[in-house]
């Protein structure tokens, strides 16, 4: 009897001492939840409705069928994915990956010396030299590609110049070749490699070079053992910024490669806009997205999340 009364007493006192705390905590929690909802509610709304829903929609349509009249048949099938492997699409995908890698590589080859030069020898011209890289990329993308066409065309600047010099009699076909596509991709995405590399090189502590030099490292060794490892973050960030858009590029192959030149981006656009094959296009888009997410996963794995956000 006594024990139960005692325990009840103890219990009630515990409840009494605990209850104001929990209500205060609850109040805090409620306010916290309210804050999260006010500041982040709108973005969550936008994300769910206009990013996650559309992307899941792509996944959903990629397993549907196209009927004989271009209509969509609501019947689950993996046919689109099988087509991806069977038909020439796989080749197009590999070709796109090849072009994206090539673009990335050439961009690094051109950007690294440039960024290095600006960071180390730019002096008081640093800001201006960087601006000179950024400004051309602010002229609309489509207009710059048009300009490249003007230069490369059979009636274009290079051909006219060579004919006037008497080097060639007939114009050389530059436009609508794979070379034009490569040049266009590098041209379009180059600034996005220079900027992160510059940021990484600028952040380097020059005393590290001095130290390496004092310890007797040759310039080559200094570069490969000190500079390159320390700018890995910049290289990864630049790779994300260049590789992704060049893999999915549509306008460059479309305008400079001609109507027969297909890359992954061109194929997706073609399926959706011209062919009207929504399930097929969705499947290609999903595959493209998958390849990229894989790449981003590896970059985060090896470079850390910062390199992704630093890229911005």
């Amino acid at each position, binding site marked *: 009897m006594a024990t139960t009364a005692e325990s009840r007493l103890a219990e009630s006192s515990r409840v009494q001492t605990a209850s104001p705390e929990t209500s205060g905590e609850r109040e805090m929690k409620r306010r916290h939840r309210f804050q999260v909802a006010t500041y982040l509610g709108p*973005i969550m709304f936008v994300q769910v409705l*206009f990013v996650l*829903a559309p992307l899941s929609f792509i996944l959903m349509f990629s397993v549907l069928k196209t009927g004989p009249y271009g209509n969509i048949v609501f019947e689950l099938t993996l046919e689109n994915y099988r087509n991806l492997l069977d038909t020439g699409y796989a080749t197009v995908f590999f070709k796109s990956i090849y072009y994206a890698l090539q673009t990335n590589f050439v961009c690094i080859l*051109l950007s690294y*010396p440039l960024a290095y030069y600006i960071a180390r020898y730019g002096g008081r011209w640093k800001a201006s030299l960087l601006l000179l890289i950024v*400004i051309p990329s602010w002229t609309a*993308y489509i207009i710059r590609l048009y300009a490249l066409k003007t230069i490369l065309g059979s009636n274009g600047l290079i051909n006219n110049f060579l004919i006037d010099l008497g080097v060639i009699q007939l114009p050389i076909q530059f436009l609508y070749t794979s070379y034009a596509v490569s040049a266009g991709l590098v041209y379009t995405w180059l600034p996005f490699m220079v900027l992160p590399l510059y940021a990484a090189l600028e952040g380097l502590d020059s005393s590290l070079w001095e130290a390496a030099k004092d310890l007797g490292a040759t310039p080559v060794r200094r570069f490969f053992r000190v500079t390159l490892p320390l700018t890995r973050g910049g290289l990864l960030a630049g790779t994300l910024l260049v590789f992704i858009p060049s893999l999915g590029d549509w306008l460059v192959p479309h305008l400079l490669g001609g109507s027969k030149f297909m890359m992954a981006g061109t194929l997706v*656009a073609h399926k959706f806009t011209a062919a009207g094959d929504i399930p097929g296009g969705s499947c290609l*888009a999903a595959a493209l997205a998958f390849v990229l997410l894989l790449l981003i996963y590896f970059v985060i794995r090896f470079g850390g999340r910062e390199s992704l956000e630093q890229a*911005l």
Partner: protein
Amino acid sequence: MKLRILFLRLISLVTYIFLWAPVIVIIVFSFSANKYGIKWDGFTWKWYAALLENDMVRETCLRSLVIALITVVVSTFLGTITAYGLYKLKFKGKQLLRTSILLPIVMPEVVTGAALLLFFIKLSPLQLGYTTIIIAHIVFSTPLAVFVILGRMQRIDWSWEEASMDLGATRLSTFRRVIGPLLMPGIAGAAALIFPWSFDDFVITYFVSGIGNTTLPIYVFSQLRHGSTPVINVIGTLFTVITLIGLLATKMAEKRSRTARL
């Protein structure tokens, strides 16, 4: 030693020429009398006169401007409150939210465009047109705003906020009078990035615009199909010149505010 610098200089020079040649070609040929605008046939102003009379250019340019302005206002606002929430608050799923915000910019434009198109025509009551273009632009611009402003937040001194609140200011007036001005460089930077981004966008706009709702880049694209015309050179020149003026103005303002502070 000398040779190495010479080598760096050479590569840098070649890269600069590579980047600038097309832009310079556009500017020079916009004054050329050649009717395809692809070689030099003597000086003329007539393509600029032709542009003034071209209703399509005027109309599409205005439309692109309106779209870009709305996009800038909405996405910098959304970006600011999101960045504030991400910076200040701790909650479950924060990392997931951050990653998901990055999605629209890490996806290739054709994928984002295709996904939005599919969503708009199959699931939403919206007709393809202005609204869908503006929504799409906000979707791909907001992530930029979020991360640019977040970058700024990591650099400001938050004790100002505490001081202001200790002195009795409400959260709202603290934001308006203290944090807002401190964040301004970030917000302005985001706006400066987003405006041309939205104004120039072709790929996503092409997917979600539907028929007849042409923006300037889409008009240029449709003109390219008909072969070269000098009007495109003129539009390109104006683009470059306007960008340069905007850039110089920002630099001058920056310099003035810096000297004023000193």
